[in-house]
């Protein structure tokens, strides 16, 4: 049967190419950014020590970004990822340090907190069918308030944790390699999580159902996919990954604080978007998100080392987001 393909112009072919290989743009951007800062800043930027420092700096945003990617693939958004992370870390700290319970139990209850937060989001989105933006805007406030209830607005100092529950800081352990490279257990955890979620999205049928649910929910339902169940699964997994990020956060800063990381959810969304995942759902990848997080990390680190004011970091990251969404719109147009 000879159905004719439409004739392709060069632009169209290029757009097709970007459509097939959406991670090309973040990959090229990352390569250019690294090259540029290596050139401008030189040794101080392009050293094993500094490059692995960037890795450490993006570990938390990378984890939250992976969690956020899952939700955005379903054409949703989770504004509560940052507060779920902090709430979970507060639960871990309170249970083990303040109440003196075993640290394994504290870790478990922290992850369970993430699970429940995600479950609540997922039930509201999938069963009551509220818009994810509104649901998570609400739970952002609710979970944020619970942080203060649980923590009583107290910070648990690093020394206290080291004395009573050092395992909570386990993710901050470092492996020092030749040449000054430093890798934390947290970064390794990020890579393990990324590999697992990559497998889920690319090799398992659950992943196909996640993409299909975000791409065309009616088609997914007619194909026999239980879209509500898929959505709940995604929000729950997102919550658990945020709790894991909470553990990594304790390792990174040593202490447990109800304050701080106010912009973590926005940074996570930034990493996802710069990584080429479409806010309209159905398109995107974990590798893209990792690169997105690295791009943001490289820009912040490089600009800081170049001696530029912090405002230029915000400025350039903002431009990156706008550019990424513009490209996504353009690539998506080919399906119209």
């Amino acid at each position: 049967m000879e159905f004719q393909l439409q004739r392709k112009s060069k632009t169209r072919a290029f757009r097709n190419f970007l459509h097939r290989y959406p991670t090309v743009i973040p990959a090229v951007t990352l390569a250019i950014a690294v090259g540029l800062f290596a050139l401008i800043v030189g040794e101080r930027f392009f050293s094993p020590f500094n490059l692995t420092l960037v890795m450490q700096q993006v570990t938390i945003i990378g984890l939250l970004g992976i969690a956020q990617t899952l939700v955005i693939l379903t054409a949703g958004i989770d504004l509560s990822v940052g507060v779920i992370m902090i709430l979970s870390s507060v639960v871990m700290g309170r249970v083990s340090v303040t109440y003196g319970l075993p640290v394994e139990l504290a870790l478990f209850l922290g992850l369970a907190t993430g699970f429940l937060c995600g479950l609540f989001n997922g039930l509201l989105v999938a069963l009551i069918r509220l818009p994810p933006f509104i649901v998570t805007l609400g739970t952002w406030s609710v979970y944020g308030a619970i942080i203060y209830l649980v923590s009583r607005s107290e910070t648990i100092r690093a020394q206290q944790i080291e004395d009573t529950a050092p395992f909570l800081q386990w993710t901050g352990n470092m492996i020092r390699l030749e040449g000054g490279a430093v890798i934390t257990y947290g970064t390794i955890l990020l890579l393990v999580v990324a590999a697992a979620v990559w497998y889920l999205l690319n090799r398992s049928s659950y992943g196909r159902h996640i993409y299909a649910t975000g791409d065309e929910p009616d088609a997914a339902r007619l194909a026999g996919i239980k879209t509500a169940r898929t959505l709940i699964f995604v929000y729950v997994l997102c919550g658990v990954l945020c709790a894991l990020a909470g553990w990594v956060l304790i390792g990174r800063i040593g202490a447990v604080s109800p304050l701080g990381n106010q912009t973590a959810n926005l940074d996570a969304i930034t990493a996802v978007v710069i990584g080429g995942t479409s806010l309209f759902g159905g398109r995107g990848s974990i590798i893209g998100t990792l690169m997105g997080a690295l791009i943001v990390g490289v820009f912040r680190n490089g600009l800081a080392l170049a001696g530029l004011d912090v405002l230029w970091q915000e400025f350039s990251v903002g431009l990156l987001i706008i550019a990424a969404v513009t490209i996504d719109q353009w690539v998506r147009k080919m399906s119209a």
Partner: protein
Amino acid sequence: MKPQAILEARSLEKYYGSVVAMDGADFDLYRGEILAVIGDNGAGKSTLIKALSGAVIPDSGQILLDGKPVHFRSPLDARNAGIETVYQTLALSPALSIADNMFLGRELHSGGTFGRMLGNMNMRQMRNQARDMLNELGLTTIQDINQPVETLSGGQRQGIAVARAAAFASQVIILDEPTAALGVKESLLVLKLIRDVRDRGISIVLISHNMPHVFEIADRIHIHRMGRRGAVVDPKKITMSDAVAIMTGALTVDDTAEKQA
């Protein structure tokens, strides 16, 4: 010899409040035929079709598949019984590949029980089977099974949707307006494809508003009118305008019988 019915419906009724969507509707699909279902807007043909595909549960009446009564509670039930439906919207996921779409919702797994638990897809087998199916149906211009569906033309997409139905249907395929969105040339190719699927032994229900297409391809035509079967006619023995006249009520079947006599 009386032809053997594969899918039958007896006195189906469906009420939406005071609106009667099916008023004792009967239906017979014979094995290996293409049965076109035509009817004016509001005649209740889509309710009938939805009852046959499991999307609507009739208030009363009986549906028989291969002579045995069936009770579909959902489209999934109908699918499991061997009835595939190709919806007008095609129900394809544009960003996913052809192979992904063909197996969407019923992916093949590998790695035993553990693999199934993980949802571990057997991607090679899915790709090979999808390619074989397209080749068998002569959809050979689709070279790349990993191509996203949105890069395909309307006719190619329709081809994928039909191929998917053909791959999984053991008994019946219901096609809802398969040529409505297509140009002349692509329509003809899709009609040929439908005929090829029938020749593979699958019985086909075709819903269409396009009379030339109906008359070109149908073995029999079920004319639905006022919530029930108005007539079943042979496209070789009736003119297109008479069929439309029966559909709109301007003519009764007796009138046409007289004309033929």
